[in-house]
C-alpha cells in the first residue's frame, strides 16, 4: 500500500542545511500496524508528514496504492489525502471554536457528504468512541483523554484506508493511553492500515512491526 524508495528530506535555511531523512526506503502493507520509533530529532515526524502527504520529499519516490505521489502539488496532495488518510496528533489539534460533533464532522464536510448522512456517521462514530454524551461540548470542556478520542473519531469518521498517528498517547496518562491504543488496534483489526510514531516501547508493542529511525536513516527492522 505504501512504498518509499530512497526518500530524502533536507531543510535549508540561508545558513544551515539539515538532513532530516537521508534515504529512507520502506514498505507498509495494507492492513498492517507499523510503529516508527527513534530518539528526538531522528526524523520520525518528518517521515509521518511525508507519508500523510503533508509535505513532499526532497528526493526519492513515494508510491501510495501504486501511484507516485511524492511530487504532487499542494492541491493534488489534498485531493489524494481527502478521505484516504486520517490523522491523530499528539496535541489533538481540535478546533476550539467547533464543538465535538462539528470537529468530527469536518472531514465529511470536505468530502461533500450530504448533511443527513454526515449526522448519522458522526453519531455512530461518537457512540463507538463512547463520547456521544459530549457531542455538544467544546474541546476546552473535555478531558485530555476525551479530546484524544474526539481526535480519533475525526480521523476514522470517513473510513480512511490509513491512519497516521503521531505520538497518540504522548499527552495521556496510562489509562487513557491504553484506551487509545486499544482503539487503534481495533481499527487495525477492522482493516485499517495504521502507522504510528511513538517513543513508547509499550505502545510500539501493539504494532505488528517496528521501524527504528536514527539520524534520518532506518536501522534494522525488527519483526514481532
Amino acid at each position: 500500500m505504501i512504498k518509499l524508495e530512497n526518500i530524502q528530506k533536507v531543510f535549508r535555511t540561508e545558513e544551515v542545511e539539515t538532513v532530516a531523512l537521508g534515504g529512507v526506503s520502506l514498505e507498509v502493507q495494507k492492513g498492517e500496524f507499523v510503529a516508527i520509533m527513534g530518539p528526538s530529532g531522528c526524523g520520525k515526524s518528518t517521515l509521518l508528514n511525508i507519508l500523510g502527504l503533508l509535505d513532499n520529499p526532497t528526493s526519492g519516490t513515494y508510491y501510495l496504492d501504486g501511484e507516485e505521489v511524492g511530487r504532487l502539488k499542494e492541491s493534488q496532495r489534498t485531493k489524494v489525502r481527502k478521505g484516504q488518510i486520517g490523522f491523530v496528533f499528539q496535541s489533538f489539534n481540535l478546533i476550539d471554536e467547533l464543538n465535538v460533533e462539528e470537529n468530527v464532522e469536518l472531514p465529511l464536510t470536505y468530502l461533500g457528504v450530504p448533511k443527513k448522512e454526515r449526522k448519522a456517521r458522526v453519531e455512530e462514530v461518537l457512540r463507538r468512541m463512547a463520547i456521544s454524551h459530549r457531542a455538544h461540548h467544546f474541546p476546552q470542556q473535555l478531558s485530555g483523554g476525551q479530546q484524544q478520542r474526539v481526535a480519533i473519531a475525526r480521523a476514522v469518521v470517513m473510513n480512511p484506508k490509513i491512519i497516521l498517528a503521531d505520538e497518540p498517547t504522548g499527552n495521556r496518562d496510562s489509562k487513557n493511553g491504553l484506551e487509545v491504543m486499544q482503539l487503534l488496534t481495533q481499527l487495525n483489526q477492522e482493516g485499517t492500515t495504521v502507522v504510528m510514531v511513538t517513543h513508547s516501547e509499550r505502545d510500539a508493542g501493539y504494532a505488528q512491526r517496528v521501524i527504528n529511525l536514527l539520524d534520518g536513516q532506518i536501522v534494522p527492522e525488527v519483526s514481532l
Partner: protein
Amino acid sequence: MNVLKSLNQRGQHNWIKIVCLAVGLATGIVLIGKAGFEQSWDNFFPTSDRIYVVCEDWVLEGEYKHYPKTAGAIAPGLERYCPQVEAATRYTDFAWDMPIVTEEDKRVCTNYALVDSCFFDVFPFRVLAGDSKQALSRVDYCMVSRSLAEKLGGDVMGRIVFFNKRGGWALTIGGVYEDIPLNSKLHNLQVMVSMPTITKITFDGRENWVGNDRYESYVRLAKGVGADDLKPQIEKMKQENLPLEDLKKAGVELDFSLQPLAEFHTHDEDTRRMTWILSILAVVLIGCAVMNYLLLVIGGISRRAREMAVHKCYGAGSYHIYRKVMSESAVHLVLSLALASLLLFFFKDTIEELTGTPLLLILKLDSNVFMILLTCLVVLLITGMVPSWIYTHIPVAAAFKNYTQSHRIWKMMLLGLQFASATFLIVLLMVVGRQYRMMINDDTGYDYSSLGIMKVDGVSGGQRQLVVDELRKLSAVKGVTMSYANLTEGQSGDNIYLPEDDHEYMNIADLFYVGDGYFDVLGIPVISGQTFTEQTDTLREVMVSRKFEERMRELAGWDQAVGKQIHCTSFDGLYTIVGVYENTRLGSITHPDPRASVCFYSQNADYMHYIIIRFHTMDGLKEANQVVKELVTDNPDIAIIPYNQMIIGLYSDARRFRITVMIGGVVALIIALIGLIGYLAGEMARRQKEIAIRKVNGARTRDVLYLFQADILKVALPAVLIGALCAWYVARIWLEQFSEKSSLPPLMFLVCVLAVTAIILSVVCIGCYRVSNSNPVNYLKNE
C-alpha cells in the same frame, strides 16, 4: 453559523478589526459620497446634456476674462438667431436671504430672482400648480418652490405675499414648482418673480446687448447640435446688434461661448480640486482601516495557520480556505457596515454640517451607491483574499511545527503605511488650520475688530437715518456710517473713461455710495487728498483706491490721481478724484475681487444697504441692538451682527474642511495606534523568551524598551517623513484656491513629524512595559 462563532475566536481581535473597519468605512463613505455629490451636479435631468450656460469672453488690454453671465438681450437673441436653439431663458437674482411675508405675518427668509417666462421651456423641472407662462409674464406675480409653499402654509396659489415686510411690495403667487435639487446650479431659485416686474426693482436691462451683464442665460440645443455649431449665427448676432466699433475703440473684444450646464460645477477648478482631495482622504482612511485589519490578521497568523492546517488535513483545499476566510471577511464587512451606519446615524447632524449636504441625499445618489458598493467590494477582496492567500501558502507541516514565522516585513510595511497615513492627515490638518487662522485674522485693509454691521434692506430711508442718529448717541458707540456695498462681497463692475477719450481704461469694482465718516469708522487710511465731507454729493467728487491710482499710472501715465477727472459708466458725467484710500480686500481670500475700486459720497440713506457701527468694545452690541429693535418695529429680522462673525462666515468651507481633516486625522491616528498595539502584542508573545533571556543576562527594562523602540523607529521615521511629504504636496494643491496662502514652514513639518513619532514611541513604551518589566522566569517557565 461557524463564521459567526469565529467572531469571538481568541487571538484574532475580530471586534477590533470590525470597529476599526467601521470607523474607516463611515468616514470614507461620507467623503466618497461628498466627492460623488459634487460630481453629480446638473446631470440628473433628461435634457441636461443639451442645456448650456451662455458666457461672455472678454479681452481687455490683452487680458482674457471668462464671465458666466450676460447682458439681458443675449439669451432671447440666441433663440432668434440660432435655429439650433430649441429654447432660451434668463434670470437674475436680486435679493438673498430676504423675508417673504404672508398676510398673516408669517415670515420666511428666502432668495428672489427675476425669471423670464421661458424658464420651464429650458429646464424640465415640474410645475406643481399654476401656469408658469402666465405667472412669469405678469407684473408682480411670482412662483415659489414646493418647500417654500409648505412653509408659507401649503395652499398658496393666488395668495398675496410681501417682499421683506407686511404691507410692503406685494406679489401674487401664480405657481408652485418642485424644489430644484441641491446639486444644481439653480438650487437657489426659491422665489421666481416675473421678469416684467424688473422695472419696479432695478434697471431694466432686458434689451441690453452690452453692459448690465447680470443675467444668467441658458439655451437648450436641439439633439445632435454642439456648441461650436452656433458660432456663425452668434457672429451674425454680434455684427447686427453689438456696438463692435465702439468696443474696439475702447480696447475691448467681446465674444460669447456656451458651456455645458452639466460641466459648469463639475469642471470648475475648485470643485475638481476638492473632489480630488476628498477622494484622497477617503482612500487614506479606508486604506488605514484595511491595513489595520490585515495587520491584525497577520498578527494572529500562527494560531490561525494551525487551524487551517487541521482543515487541510481533513480535506480542505485552497477553495475551501478561500471560501471560509472570505465568508468571515464578508461577515466582518457586513458588521462593520452596520456599525458604520449607526455611526452615520448618530453623527448625522455633524456630518450634514460638515458636508453642507443632507446625508440621505449623498447616500441615495446612484453614482454614490455604485461607488460605495465598489469600495465595499474592494475592501472585501483585500480583507478576504490576502489572508486566504497567506493561509493557503503556509505548508501544513510547518503550521503544525509551532508556526512562528513573524511576517515581520509585512507587518512593518502595513504599520508604516498606517503611520504615513496618520502623519499625512495630521500635517494636512496643521496646514489647513494655519490657513484658516490666517484667513479669519486676515488683514483686510480695514479694522473690523470692534465693528458691527447691519443690513437695512426693507427699512425705510427715514428709519435708517433715525437708527444712525440714535446709535450715534450711545456711549458705547464710537462712530456710525452707512454704505451701499459690503466689502466682503463681490462688487458690481463699472468701466472707467477719461474726459474726451472714448478708450475704456479698466473695469473697476464700484462701491457706489458711502456715508459720513465711512473711512474713519472702517479705519481705512486715506493716503493722499482728503475724505468726503458733508455736502460733497453735490460736488461730483469720487475717491479711488491705491490700486486705481497705480493702474492709471500705467494705463494713462498719471503722476497722481487727486485732482483728475474720470467718467464711471454707472454715473453720468465727470467726477473729480478728491482722495486716494488704501487698498482693502474686496470679497474673500477664496473669492477675491482683485479690481481697483472707487466710491462716491451720498447723504441719502435710501441709497444705502448697510449701517456700519464702530464700538469702543463689542460689549456695546447688545445695547445697540436694543435701540434698533425699538426703532424698527416692523422688521424683526433686522439686527447688528459683529463684523468678525461675517468674516468667519466667509470661510465656513475652510472651517468645515479643517474639521473634516481633523476627524480624519484623529481616526487615522487611532487606527494606526490600535494596529501598533496589536503588532506589539504579537511581537511580545513571539519574543517573550528572547526578552526573558536578555533580562536574565542583565538587560534592564529600558534596554528592552529601547530594543522595541529602535525596531519601530526604523519603520516609523521613514513613514512619517513620507506622510509629511505627501501632505506637503496635497496642501500645496489645496492652497491653490486661495489668493493669499499661508506659508509652509519646514519647522511646522518637523514639529508634526516629531510629535507623531513621539506618540508612536510612547505607545511602544506603554505596550511593552508589562513584559519588559515582568519577571523573566514566568516566560522561561512557559517555554
